[in-house]
C-alpha cells in the first residue's frame, strides 16, 4: 500500500509538467512555420504522449492498456515517413 501511494503521488506530481510540455509542442505545431517543423513537433508530441500513456496506465492500475500506447508511439513515426516521401518528390508509394 505504501508503494502504491508513493508511485501515485510522484506520478501525479509529474502530470502538470507533461501537460506544459505538450502545450509547448502544440504551440510549435500551430506556429509552423514550415511543414517539416509541424511534422517534427507532431512526431515528438506523439512519442511523449506514448510515454505519458505508459505512465497513465501505471497510474490508473490498468497494465493491459500498455499495448495501445505502443501503437501510438509506433505509428506517429509513419507520418514522418509519408511526409518525407512526399517531400522527396519522387514517385509516392511507388
Amino acid at each position, binding site marked *: 500500500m505504501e508503494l502504491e501511494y508513493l508511485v*501515485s503521488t510522484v506520478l*501525479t506530481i509529474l*502530470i502538470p509538467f507533461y*501537460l506544459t510540455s505538450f502545450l509547448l509542442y*502544440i504551440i510549435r*505545431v*500551430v506556429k*509552423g512555420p514550415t*511543414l517539416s517543423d*509541424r*511534422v517534427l513537433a*507532431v512526431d515528438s*508530441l*506523439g512519442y511523449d*504522449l506514448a510515454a505519458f*500513456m505508459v505512465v*497513465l496506465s501505471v*497510474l*490508473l492500475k*490498468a497494465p*493491459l*492498456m500498455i*499495448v*495501445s*500506447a505502443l*501503437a*501510438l508511439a*509506433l*505509428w*506517429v513515426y*509513419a*507520418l514522418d515517413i*509519408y*511526409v518525407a*516521401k*512526399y517531400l522527396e518528390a519522387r514517385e*509516392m*508509394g511507388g
Partner: protein
Amino acid sequence: MEPVAILLATAAALLSVIATYLAIEAKDLLVATVFSAVQSTAYALMYYILMAPDIVLVYVPVSVGLLPAVTILLIKKTERYER
C-alpha cells in the same frame, strides 16, 4: 485519480477542437493532414482515458498510420494547395 483523468480528457477534447478548426481552415492540404493527425492523437488520448484500449488499438493504426498515408497519396496525385 478520477479528477485528474477527466481533466486530461477535457484537455484532449479541447485540443481536438483547435486541431479540427485548423485542419478545416488550412489552405495547405498537407498541413491540414498534419492537423487531422493531431486531432486523431487527441482522440486517441481521450479514448485511452475513457478506458477503451481496443479502440485506441484500432483507431491509431487506422487514423494515424493509414489515413495520412492515403491522404498524402491523394494530395501527391492531385494538388497540394486548396484553390
